[in-house]
Every structure is written in structure tokens, then in C-alpha cells.
């Protein structure tokens, strides 16, 4: 392990020889890590490498099987996340865990809201403090609205605001940017830099390598639960980092094939959902990958939901392969050949308490059937087939999906929908939380699907992904389609200009 210098500052937080197993799965093996004040430290590794487990162990959510956590050089044992917080460690977990019925402000100041005389809760102070946090992050979220119904990105913002509100000495962030677009990420990084300059130590996880290089000074890499290296990022390239993570060189990240588009497969006409999006019209042809870009809150997810039928639309129409879809009926959309990989894998994509096999099987209830009964053999082979194709890392196909790492859960959602053999595939943040290796794999898969004649509509807050994969980019701004940019003209500048409403 590297130590900046023998005379340098002492680590504020250190892990020594941490091991943690879940039954037969050895999630962490003898991992060590040092966090210094005033540094942003990256934690890198493939899906299932053990990053989240390391963080949960550090924060007292998991008890390590072996090893020590040292705070200011002293061994500490945290008995729960509360202990860690009291010690000045704020953690943003990979999956947002807000209370849906509480307001944003209440979620942020949960259990420690400003009080006035006679211990009455000071609503105004809570509200104002929340509003100030939102301004710092540059987002417009009403502190008084309930958390229910927030998009994943907004939930992530609230979690970030909550962590910031602690004024912690150590800030730990497990994929905070996975659902955010450039502008929110830029704001977040501004805040993180300010904290760092005030002497806070930050541990940062992201599968977007460019973010790691932008904000971090050192990186610790894990592979299959084992510590690989802790080293400065200076002088490293993205390829070096990938090699550390996966142990080999990586294929091209955006393997886009050139395809001549066929007939229109998805046609959306003047679709409107009042107060959410207005007059949205576009076509997606067979063989095309169309990117749908926009800032968080622009209405991209909402359009996808309405097209698929989980929300109703108020006006307009949707056709798949010339067949008009029924308003608000996902089953007819599926029958017409439409598939939607939703943004929120834990609530919408998966039944967390069900096995991998049955989750993938859910979209096959109409097909893996013999004489009206479930054909278990067919269900299992269909599920296994797709779990293997997407390289889901699991112990047994009958394990529940909540034992999988975040990225592997995402792969199960993709498997579940690709298994339907769709004609039109809408993917909402398809690679959220997926590691670079698998990301390349998913992109190759999407590209191949398009080449085979599937029409793909891709929503992504990862702009390079949109630019790398899309034949055409549609841009939404405040509920309206504001631009359509062909691949040749699509650049970060043109897309961002349309997304922020700077062009008509």
C-alpha cells in the first residue's frame, strides 16, 4: 500500500485486513484502505467486487468477520449506521432509502430537526435549511413535497443533501451520480471540492471512469473481494484503471454498428400528460437506436412510462408496428412487442424477495406455459440462458435478487426484458450502476439487437453513452421535445444546449 509520505497527515479513517462473507460468498478478503483528510479517494471495481459491502462494513451496517476500522488511529466498532454518523461519517448508500410519506425536508432532518422553545419542531428552520441545501446543489426541489413519486435522480439528490447536512469529517458516496446528468454532477463536484478544501475526507464510487479522474486523487481497486492496489491517479489512464479492475484489456465501450433504418416500429403522436409532458411526437425505426436526452426532471422517464402504459396519457396516440396501443395497459403494449427497462430497478424492475429465475420468468408467464400450466423446465432454461448471456454474477439461480450487487440486479432487469424478444425496446438508464466491462457488453448487445431489426429508444443521463450509441438524439426540456439531432451533429455542446433550453 502507498502512503503519501511518512511525514504526511495521519489517515482520519483506516480499514485494516477487513474480511466479510455471506454464506459461501466471500464478498471481502483482507481489504485495507486509508482515507486522508483533504483527499477524494476513489473505490473502483466491477459489479460484485465488494465496494458496497466495504462501505456498509465501514459504516457499521455489516459487522466484519475479521479486521479493524480505525478512526484517528484508534480502533472503533460501530454497532450501526447511527454510531458511524455520530463519529462524523456520513454515508450515501447505493440505493436511496427515503421514507415515502415524509417530506423531503423531514427525510433530510430525520430525527434531528431544529427545535424551538418547548422542544417544538421548527418547521420553518427545517424548510429553510433544506432549501439552502438544494440551492447549494443547484436543484429545484420543493422541501415540503413528499418523497413519494420522486424520480431516482431526485431521490439521489435528497440522499446527497442529507449526507451534506451532517457537516461530516468523512463523506462516503456509493454511486451518487449513477442517475445524474452532467449539470447535476458538476454541481455535486463543486460541493465536494469545497468540502475537501475544508479538510474533509471523501470516498467516492462510480462506474463512470471520467468522473473518477475528474475528482479523485487516489484510487483503491477491488477485484472479487480482494484488494488489488491503492495508488495515485496521476499518470494513470482509463485503460490502466480498467485493467486493474478486470485484469485484462477492454473491448470498445461503444461498439455501435451502422444499420440502415427500416420501417417505423414505434410512433408517438402528440402525446400529452397534463403537467408532465406536452405534445411529444417522434418515430423510432427498426434498426435504429434513438437517444432521449435531457436534464433530470425534463420528463423523459414519464414519456417512457406513458408509452408503455403504466401511466395514462391525456391526449395523443402511440403505435407499435402500426398497431395502436391502449391507453394505460402494459399488457397490450407487451403483446404488441414493446418492452420497457424501467429506471428504478428495486421498485419497478424487480420483485426483490423473488429468485433470479422467477424475476426473469415474470415476463414469460405467457410463453413458458404448457397446457395452461407453468412449464418449469422452460422457465428455468429461459432464465438461465439470459442470466448467462448478461453475465449476472450469482451463486444460484434460485437465490433472491436482493442478495445480488446493484449492478448485477440491473443485469437481471435487462435479462428479464430482453428475454421477451421485443420489437421495440425502451431502456431507461440501462447501464445505471453497471461496470465498464459489462457496460461495453450491454452496448454491444443493444447494437446487435438494433442490427437484428429491433427499434431501440434509449434514455440515459450518461451523455457519452447517448453520443456513443445513438443514431439520433431527441432532447427534452421541461416536458417538451426541443431538438432532434442526427448522430453526425450530436456533440456534448449541441445536446446540452438543447437540454438546458438555450436553443429553440
Amino acid at each position: 500500500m502507498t502512503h503519501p509520505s511518512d511525514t504526511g497527515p495521519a489517515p482520519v479513517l483506516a480499514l485494516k485486513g477487513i474480511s466479510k462473507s455471506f454464506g459461501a460468498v466471500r464478498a471481502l478478503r483482507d481489504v485495507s484502505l486509508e482515507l486522508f483528510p483533504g483527499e477524494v479517494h476513489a473505490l473502483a471495481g466491477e459489479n460484485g467486487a465488494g465496494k458496497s459491502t466495504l462501505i456498509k462494513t465501514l459504516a457499521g451496517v455489516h459487522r466484519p468477520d475479521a479486521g479493524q476500522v480505525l478512526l484517528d488511529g484508534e480502533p472503533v466498532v460501530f454497532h450501526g449506521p447511527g454510531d458511524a454518523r455520530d463519529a462524523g461519517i456520513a454515508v450515501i448508500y447505493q440505493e436511496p432509502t427515503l421514507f415515502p410519506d415524509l417530506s423531503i425536508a423531514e427525510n433530510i432532518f430525520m430525527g434531528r430537526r431544529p427545535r424551538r422553545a418547548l422542544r417544538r419542531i421548527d418547521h420553518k428552520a427545517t424548510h429553510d435549511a433544506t432549501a439552502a441545501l438544494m440551492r447549494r446543489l443547484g436543484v429545484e426541489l420543493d422541501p415540503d413535497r413528499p418523497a413519494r413519486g420522486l424520480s431516482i435522480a431526485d431521490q439521489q439528490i435528497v440522499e446527497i443533501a442529507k449526507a451534506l447536512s451532517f457537516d461530516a469529517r468523512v463523506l462516503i458516496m456509493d454511486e451518487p451520480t449513477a442517475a445524474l446528468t452532467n449539470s447535476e454532477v458538476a454541481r455535486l463536484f463543486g460541493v465536494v471540492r469545497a468540502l475537501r478544501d475544508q479538510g474533509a475526507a471523501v470516498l467516492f464510487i462510480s462506474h463512470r471512469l471520467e468522473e473518477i479522474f475528474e475528482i479523485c486523487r487516489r484510487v483503491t481497486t477491488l477485484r472479487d473481494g480482494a484488494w488489488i492496489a491503492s495508488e495515485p491517479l496521476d499518470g494513470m489512464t482509463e485503460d490502466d484503471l480498467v485493467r486493474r479492475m478486470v485484469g485484462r484489456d477492454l473491448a470498445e465501450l461503444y461498439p455501435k454498428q451502422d444499420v440502415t433504418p427500416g420501417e417505423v416500429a414505434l410512433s408517438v403522436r402528440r402525446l400529452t400528460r397534463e403537467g408532465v409532458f406536452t405534445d411529444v411526437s417522434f418515430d423510432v425505426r427498426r434498426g435504429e437506436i434513438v437517444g432521449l436526452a435531457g436534464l433530470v426532471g425534463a420528463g423523459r422517464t414519464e414519456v417512457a412510462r406513458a408509452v408503455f402504459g403504466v401511466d395514462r396519457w391525456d391526449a395523443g396516440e402511440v403505435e407499435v408496428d402500426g398497431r395502436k396501443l391502449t391507453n394505460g395497459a402494459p399488457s397490450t403494449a407487451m403483446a404488441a412487442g414493446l418492452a420497457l427497462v424501467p429506471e428504478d430497478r428495486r421498485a419497478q424492475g424487480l420483485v426483490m424477495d423473488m429468485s433470479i429465475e422467477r424475476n426473469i420468468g415474470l415476463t414469460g408467464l405467457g410463453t413458458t406455459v404448457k397446457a395452461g400450466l407453468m412449464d418449469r423446465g422452460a422457465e428455468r432454461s429461459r432464465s438461465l440462458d439470459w442470466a448467462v448471456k448478461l453475465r449476472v454474477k450469482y451463486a444460484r439461480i434460485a437465490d433472491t435478487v436482493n442478495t445480488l450487487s446493484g449492478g448485477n440486479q440491473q443485469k437481471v432487469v435487462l435479462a428479464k426484458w430482453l428475454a421477451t424478444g421485443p420489437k421495440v425496446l425502451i431502456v431507461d438508464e440501462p447501464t445505471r450502476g453497471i461496470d465498464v466491462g459489462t457496460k461495453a457488453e450491454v452496448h454491444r448487445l443493444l447494437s446487435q439487437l438494433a442490427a437484428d431489426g429491433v427499434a431501440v429508444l434509449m434514455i440515459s443521463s450518461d451523455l457519452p453513452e447517448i453520443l456513443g450509441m445513438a443514431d439520433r438524439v431527441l432532447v427534452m426540456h421541461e416536458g417538451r421535445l426541443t431538438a432532434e439531432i442526427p448522430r453526425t451533429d450530436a456533440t456534448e455542446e449541441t445536446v446540452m444546449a438543447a437540454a438546458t433550453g438555450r436553443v429553440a
Partner: protein
Amino acid sequence: MPDSLTRAVRWDTVVGALLVVVLLLSFTTVDGFGNALNLSFLIGNTLPIALIALPMTLLVVSGEIDLSVASTAGLSGAVMGALWNQGMAIETIIPLCLLLGVVCGLVNGLLVTRLGLPSLAVTIGTLAAYRGIAQIVLGSDAVTDFPSAYLDFAAGRIGDTFLPYAFLPFLVLLAIAVVALHATPFGRSLFAIGAGEEAARFAGIRVKRQKLILFTVTGLMSALTGVFWALHYASARYDNATGLELSVVAAVLLGGIDFDGGKGTLGGAVAGVFLLGALQNVMSLKDVSAQSQIVVTGVLLVLSVLGPRVARQIAVARAGRKAATAPDAKTPAPTS
């Protein structure tokens, strides 16, 4: 949690074993328990619980509940008595009663699925309403003079065996329910709805339709039970089957059907039903008062909610996996 781990201590197996133990103990220690006549009483008296437990199991698996079942049964019995008094043929009356059950179930189902009301609240309301209508229909009359062929079928047993005639149609219905829940896409969708309704909707499962079907079938089975009750006890009164919903829910939960939905087997539920039935029979033989029996049922209800959870925790602790459930699974579900 991995399958093998749950399988090792599956609650329905525990209940099945418990049923065997209770039966063996009763055979050896309770006078008058083991003879064929008493056993046929035991089964006959348990059949109303068993009949309604079939659709109730499916409902609870999908995350809903119906507390109006006993009132629907009472209403169906009352209408049967009233129409019989009017001189209508029993062959016409019974289908009408079943149709009435369908309507009662539909009302519950529509209130839950169209208005989005919680089924607990809706069916407590209809529990009172259906019983009230039953009283309006029949007043305090007791109708007893149904055709003897029907009475004999509902109360009699096959020769000198311990099997009531009515047990045979129950077996057929049980087989249908087992197949529906455990072997069809419909059953699979119920587990998905109970464990993650939103994800089920995003997978194209027609959540509302499935629930409407379940409530309707529950109404139908409740009405059938009401008809059986009136014939079995040769008495149609407005207050027939009062409190039966408590026994049904207790038995189903005792059988390991998770109150939160998404977990359980019909085998477990049926074991729970007959465990409860056996206990009630033994208590009657021992001259335990009806009130005390209700207390016992209530205690069982509480234990049956606790039991599977404790079993699960023991399993987890024994496997030395204190973290077998993901930590974030304990925190509130993410919003959407």
C-alpha cells in the same frame, strides 16, 4: 434468502408436523377423539373454514384480505332460507345464492381495485353490511325444513368411515386451488403482486384484474360455504357462521401465509385449517366453552403471525448469516 435455507425450516412443514403431533396426542390421550363418528364431525365442522381458506390463501398471497367472508356466508344462508319459505325449488335457490356470493365478492373487489381502498377497511365495512342485509332478509327466523336428501348429503358420512360426503367435493376444490396457485401463470402472478405490486405492474401483470377475480371467487366460495352450513347444521339463520372469518384468517396465517403477501403454500394453509379444527374438536370434547375457544383462536392468530418470523430468524442465526437479508431491505422501500 437462498431457497435451501428457507426450505430447511419451512413453516408449512412445521405446521404439518404440528398437525401430526396434535392428532397423535389426541388419539392417545383424549377420550372419544379417535372414533370414526367424532372424526367425521371434526372434518365436517372444519369444512366451512377449509372451503373459505382456499380463496383466502390466494388473496393473502396477493397482499389483500377479505373479512366479509363469514357475513357473505350468513347472507347466502339467510337468502336460502327466505326463498325456501317462499316455496322456491332448492335447485333454483342454490345457484341464486352462489350468484349472490359473486355479487358480494365483486362489490368488495371493485371497491378495492377501482377506488384504491385498503381491503382491510373495505371488508370490515361489508362484514357489517352483508350481515345487516341477512338480518333484514330473514329476521330472527330459523329455517330448518330443507329436503332431506340435501341435509343427508351435507351432514352424512360415507358408510361407517370417518369421511363426510362433503369432503370429496372439497378435495376437488383443493386440487383446483393448489394447481391454480402453484402451477399456473395466474398463481405465479399472485406471488409477484404480493411481493412487489409495482414491479408486477411493470411486468405487464394485470394487477387489478387478478385481484378482482380473487375477490369474486372468494365471494362465491363464501356463499357456497353458507349453503353448506345451513344444510350441514339443518338451520338457516341470519347469524350463521358469525365469527368464522377469524378462524379462517387464523388458520391461513397459522399455515405460514405471510400477512404481508408474497409467501406461503396451500399445503401449509390446509394444515393450519385442520390443526385449528382438531384443536377446536378437542376443546369441545373437553367441554371448553365457546368463548374460551375464541380466546384460543385469537392467541393462535397472534402466534401464527409471530411463528414464521421467529422460525426465519432462528434459521438465519443457525446458518450464521446475520446479514442474510440485505441491510437495505430493512429500510423503507424506495419511493417511486
